[in-house]
């Protein structure tokens, strides 16, 4: 039997953290922003089938960057956790805080156990409240820490530049269109100060919309609706973000006359 080299605990942890961080930085960027009616998730993701953003429960959404198999595993674990908790107690007893804690414990245990490779993932768990003050956004890096975020948050490749850009420009009470366009501008910036313009095909967008009449507030923003939101509003118009889709909004029950931002796409599952 060979004698292993001595590696100091500090060095071992630093190596593991370095390994995980490198893996995460290779991924594409992902941002989560609060807007007037909820929380919007925007990920650069050309795939229509492999999601980075998903629904966990009525008011809780999940976004992740890093290694797909690892965060997909955690996502399904989270859905099972939330559904079992809601079944055992009540739907109101499933909270983002509880879920974020479980994720943090899971990531932390894996990170510090010498026998397992650390997960190369960074997660965001967000819950939409009845009012913007009640919204919660938690960021969970690879090592099991939790950061309680407000306003805007970015993870994945180039996250530092993107969050600095968002911090300067994000305001409370933005419309969905404005928040989405800001997110796309931020995602399009690369490390050397260059800019790319991202189109709807390269984006995965979903919202947790507190004005939705259904119990489940998560909705994907797809197709024509996404294209309309990405277009800058016409300057001369009175209602700044009123896109012409209000006329096509035929869904019963969801008639939010106050803003054309609120409705118009089919539900997540239909498409």
């Amino acid at each position, binding site marked *: 039997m060979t004698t292993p080299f001595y590696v100091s605990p500090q060095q071992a942890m630093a190596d593991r953290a370095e390994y995980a961080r490198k893996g995460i930085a290779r991924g594409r960027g992902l941002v989560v922003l609060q807007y007037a009616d909820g929380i919007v998730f925007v990920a650069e993701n050309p795939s229509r089938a492999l999601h980075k953003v*998903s629904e966990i429960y009525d008011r809780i959404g999940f976004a992740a960057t890093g290694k797909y198999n690892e965060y997909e595993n955690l996502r399904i674990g989270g*859905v099972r956790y939330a559904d*079992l908790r809601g*079944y055992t107690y009540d739907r109101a007893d499933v909270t983002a805080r509880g879920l974020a804690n479980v994720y943090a414990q899971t990531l932390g245990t894996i990170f510090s156990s010498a026998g397992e490779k650390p997960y190369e993932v960074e997660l965001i768990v967000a819950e939409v409240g009845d009012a913007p003050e009640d919204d919660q956004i938690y960021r969970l890096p690879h090592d099991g820490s939790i950061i309680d975020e407000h306003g805007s948050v970015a993870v994945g490749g180039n996250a530092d530049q993107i969050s600095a850009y968002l911090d300067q420009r994000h305001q409370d009470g933005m419309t969905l269109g404005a928040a989405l366009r800001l997110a796309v501008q931020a995602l399009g910036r690369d490390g050397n100060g260059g800019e790319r313009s991202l189109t709807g095909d390269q984006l995965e967008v979903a919202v947790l919309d507190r004005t939705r009449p259904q119990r*489940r507030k998560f909705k994907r923003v797809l197709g024509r609706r996404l294209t309309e939101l990405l277009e800058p509003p016409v300057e001369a118009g009175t209602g700044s973000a009123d896109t012409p889709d209000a006329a096509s909004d035929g869904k019963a029950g969801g008639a939010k006359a106050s803003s054309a931002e609120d409705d118009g796409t089919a539900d997540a*599952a239909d498409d």
Partner: protein
Amino acid sequence: MAANSHDQGRLPAPYLTPGSSSFMDFLSTHAPEQLPGSRPLPGVQGAVQAPHGTTIVAVAFAGGVVLAGDRRATMGNMIAQRDIEKVFPADEYSAVGIAGTAGLAVEMVRLFQLELEHFEKVEGDTLSLEGKANRLSTMIRGNLGMAMQGLAVVPLFAGYDTDRSTGRIFSYDVTGGRSEEYGFAAVGSGSVFARGSLKKLHRADLTEEQAATVAVQALYDAADDDSATGGPDVARRIYPVVAVIAEGGYRRLGEDEVTTVARTVLDGRLQLPNGPLAPLV
């Protein structure tokens, strides 16, 4: 909470095991005591007294299906509850109405709703209507032990098939046997009378409003001859639960709409107590 009981609060292995998109499968490996069918049965002789829900009817119309249920729960000769609800949305495009032991039925519906939602969230897509009907079959079969002690649960499942663009109805027996019904169906103690009524009133070209009226007529006929089925209660303003599942998804008729339908039926019965006359030939 279960998630915190093992290994320093980390999600236990069953949570992170890939493979199954079924919440019931997950429960059966991780928390089998929570599954309705897997509880040990007490050795009681004879039937157990518990509230029973009664009649449910389904009526297909061009472009969808109507599912309706009366509001009475009985326990022996007693009325256990006069405003029970026995028709529930299963997901956006389907609904389930349950006759039989009310307590077990409500639990079964909760689990069924969750099963469909769980699949949808994990897979990112909904089950086919047949798939949903089969899942319900499995759940009924799991309740067979209880059914043999007199605590049967018999559902009627109706949904809008988005692939075929039609409403479809599935009925079940206590062993979980499933059969598709065409046009109309009824379950529960008043189902014999309701079916007779539906037979005479149902036509293939009904509109949504007419289908709702046919369903309420059938429930009236069931209540007329079956003491366990409740008729419209005008004094307390308790009317049947009527749900429509069509292209736009599940929609429960509002109080005003149901009141209008029920009043129209009642007014008709004041003239003809046995209901509208069907042609002889």
